[in-house]
């Protein structure tokens, strides 16, 4: 498993931000996922599972706390959006499923990854997880083959 931790908000924008639309509006999760893959140089899998126990809770709370008026905050309140900057950087198109199962989310994602392979839907499934802290985000990435 690969692990990447980045301070958020970043003190200085990483080089990849020039290739992403409105990078300054990205939420912690999408910023960190893009930064992690840029740092690792990790090849893209056949399919992605986004598996975060808290889903988009951090973005949801920020949108509501700021008066529920910000369009740029609202668009980050969907778990599926957190992969978008990475896909803008790589041009990858394919199967991506955001799975949720409360505290069992990581284990469920692993089971679903194995099933995708069994069903012939993919040969390499990448599972992306993140944890958002007060000043940093940690991204975990596991490839199931």
């Amino acid at each position, binding site marked *: 498993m690969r692990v990447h931790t980045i301070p958020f908000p970043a003190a200085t924008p990483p080089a990849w931000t020039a290739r992403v639309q409105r990078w300054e509006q990205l939420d912690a999760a999408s910023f960190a996922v893009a930064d992690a893959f840029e740092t690792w140089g990790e090849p893209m899998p056949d399919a992605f599972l986004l598996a975060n126990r808290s889903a988009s809770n951090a973005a949801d709370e920020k949108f509501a706390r700021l008066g529920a008026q910000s369009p740029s905050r609202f668009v980050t309140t*969907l778990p599926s959006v957190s992969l*978008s900057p990475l896909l803008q950087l790589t041009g990858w198109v394919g199967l991506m499923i955001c799975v949720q199962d*409360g505290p069992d989310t990581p284990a469920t994602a692993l089971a679903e990854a194995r099933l995708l392979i069994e069903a012939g839907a993919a040969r390499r499934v990448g599972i992306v997880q993140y944890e958002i802290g007060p000043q940093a985000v940690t991204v975990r990435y596991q490839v199931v083959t």
Partner: protein
Amino acid sequence: LTAGKDFSAAPDVRGWPSTPTVPARVCRIEDETTAGSVEARMAAHLAAAWQMAARMAGRSPHDGEALGVVFASTKGSVEDSVWSKASPPRLDDTLTPVLRRFLATSDLQPRRTVCVSNACSSNHVALQLAGFWLRAGAVREVLVLSADHVGPFVVNGFAALRSLAPERVTPFAAGRQGIQLGEAAAALLVTLPGPAALCRIHAVDTRVEGHALTRSRESGATLEEACVLACDGRTPDVIVAHGTGTEANDAMEDAVYRRLFATVPVTCTKWSVGHTLGASGAVDLIAACEMLRRGEVFRIANTEAPDPAFAARYLTRQARWSGPPPARALVASVGFGGMHGAALVELA
């Protein structure tokens, strides 16, 4: 839909923690449970949908060893927790509690469960996942549940995006002004092909692209890929478009349908029941199945004529259906974050 009724109305925003800055129209599920949590309300709606689906299927899957359940939603019960400034940040997602409450009040004992949150393509993704489960032999039946609740979080969000139509929604018309919101709960019992099936889902494909956080590529290339894979060489008799009524989405869909199926009639549901978000794919699939079973089509009754810039064939209010009863329908879906989905459904 066939009667041409638009079910939306201005929401009662009294008591909402945050009031939308622009007018909104919402199609609400009519129920008597005005009090209580959103989680309980959604679970009750799912139970009602499941009861109806089980009745239509003529049976109830009691075999826990053979059943899987997938719940698709964009925001689940987010309204229950997101406005409380006093509470600590919520640790777990807002979909799983809805599914657990539904299961606790049902007699179902599934072998496998999961929640899927892929924006407004959540139902298509759930259907595709159900297909993988069946193909892998993990279960024999999959109950695909979909629901979303419309409250101040969702309404304010779309208001902030300036995507809400102040009045009626007119998909694929010139001068279209955006969406109206809707609530829905849906249940689909998906099995391997068998004599009891009401309709057959030939294939489902979903794929995500990285063009922008919200908009799809103008060319619609990713939706086109999904449609091609779902159709697998077949030509649909009718297309149920995502049809939000927004400037960009409708133009993107037109680009796809004019390239792939220029003569195939295109209709949609969101002008009537609103955009039901994570449930919208299920609403459209069920509407498509009803068209096939009844041998009749519904129109986009709010739209008098299509945008002159568009070239696909739209079933607007004045359009005539000249072909035989439809036997095959393509159901498309688009969602934030670059999500695209397509499902081809046929008469069983």
